[in-house]
């Protein structure tokens, strides 16, 4: 009798342990990626004046290159045109896109007023992706949603999109890239990204 009960308990425990733990924070490692990135953003904000734009860029660059699937995001933004590009164009576009992406964060996270990030959940999404829900919490208590989409590559989780207050940042980029490529071509897009990047570094109060 005891043996049967012990076996039952064992089977139940085994089943529980084998169940996918949806919603449990940190069970895949994706949350670690987000917490590292969020910490870098806060660090950039806290030291904003001291670091200046270039300092914030240098601080965020390694973290972003380790956390974001930049080439995948670029291809998604460029869309079907990607296949038609020359290798040299792809390379130039990738380099300026990486700089622009990092520059954008260095430019926008340029002051600190007591904000903090909080990760509230990690959930499995379709096709092996993971959604990590986090909030930027201001001192007033106002919460801004920062929801990340990540995919696994060789046992590493990488960010493929961020939804800020429900708005996909990758969709914003894609819409702009498609429009510029349509009117000015890929070289026009590269030039616009360069101009914007130069604007980031020259506008800042360093």
């Amino acid at each position, binding site marked *: 009798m005891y043996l049967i009960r012990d076996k039952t308990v064992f089977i139940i425990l085994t089943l529980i342990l084998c169940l996918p733990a949806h919603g449990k924070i940190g069970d895949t490692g994706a949350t670690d990626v987000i917490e590292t990135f969020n910490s870098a953003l806060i660090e950039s904000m806290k030291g904003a004046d001291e670091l200046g734009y270039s300092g914030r860029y240098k601080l965020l*660059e*390694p973290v972003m*290159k*380790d956390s974001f*699937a930049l*080439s*995948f995001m670029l*291809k*998604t933004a460029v*869309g*079907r045109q990607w*296949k038609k*590009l020359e*290798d040299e164009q*792809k*390379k130039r576009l*990738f*380099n300026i896109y990486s700089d622009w992406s990092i520059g*954008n964060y260095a*430019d*926008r996270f340029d002051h600190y007023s007591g904000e903090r990030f909080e990760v509230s959940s990690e*959930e499995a*999404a*379709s*096709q*092996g*992706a993971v*959604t990590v*829900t986090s909030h930027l919490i201001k001192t007033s208590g*106002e919460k*801004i*949603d920062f*929801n990340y*989409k990540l*995919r*696994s*590559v*060789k046992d590493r989780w*990488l960010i*493929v*999109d961020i*939804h800020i*207050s*429900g*708005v*996909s940042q*990758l*969709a*914003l980029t*894609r*819409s*702009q890239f*498609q*429009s*510029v490529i349509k009117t000015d071509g890929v070289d026009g*897009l590269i030039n*616009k*990204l360069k*101009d*914007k990047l130069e604007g980031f570094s020259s506008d800042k109060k360093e």
Partner: protein
Amino acid sequence: MRHAILNTMYKCLSIMMISVSLFLLPFSAGAEEVQTEKTVSGDIPENVLENNSGDEEYFGEDLYLEDDIDFKDLEAYESIPDPLEPLNRIFYTFNDTFYFILFKPVARGYNAVVHKEIRKSVKNAFDNAAMPVRFVNSVIQGKVKSAGVELVRFLVNSTLGLAGLFDVSEKELSLQTDEADLGQTLGIYGLGNGFYIIWPFLGPSSLRDTIGLVGDGFLYPINYIPDREVVFGLTACEYLNENSLRIGQYEDLKSGAIDPYSALKEAYHQKRRDMIEK
């Protein structure tokens, strides 16, 4: 004569305020959930990130030869149709100029004179008055809980909150309001965007949301005040106040954009889609 001038001034001011408010609509916070299925599909090829170490050329050239994206999946990112783009771009430029030349300086002056807490209270009162819009749309959408919350919030805030000036429901009862409007309701019932429209003064919209905006007007109690001057005055006050709390959001979007027109269009589209799908 004085009456006519006053009436005209109210009308102009209210149109201006409405336009700027709608212009900034997509940047307002509040969406709580994400579209979990709409990101990208297909795993990232392994070689893409092998050398992701921070060097200037950390991606090998072989990366660019990879055929790794199923381009059919990009349909999830398709934007709102924009057949009126040439005209819309003209109106975008007009609205942008209007915002920086006229509205922003006025709003800054207002901010300097009226304390933020007072502006928040004014916003609370107008939000409270707009309860029928959210209540009716919540009911039509089948969101019974949201409709109930709206009713309780209205009763509590109208009494204990002194005509809605103080959001006692949220502070004391943790009852938060959900955005609900007719454009959203029509979207939930399967009506598509139609196409993108930028109205002069009124800002970004779609065919569906324009119809919704007109319909919601019939549910807004302030519109039923017999004295039109009072209606225009209150409308102007509401939109000046509302947008005085959002100064800087449009600038943020514009500062990182290489094509602000497309960025605004997509932000609007994404925000509305998120409201419909959540």
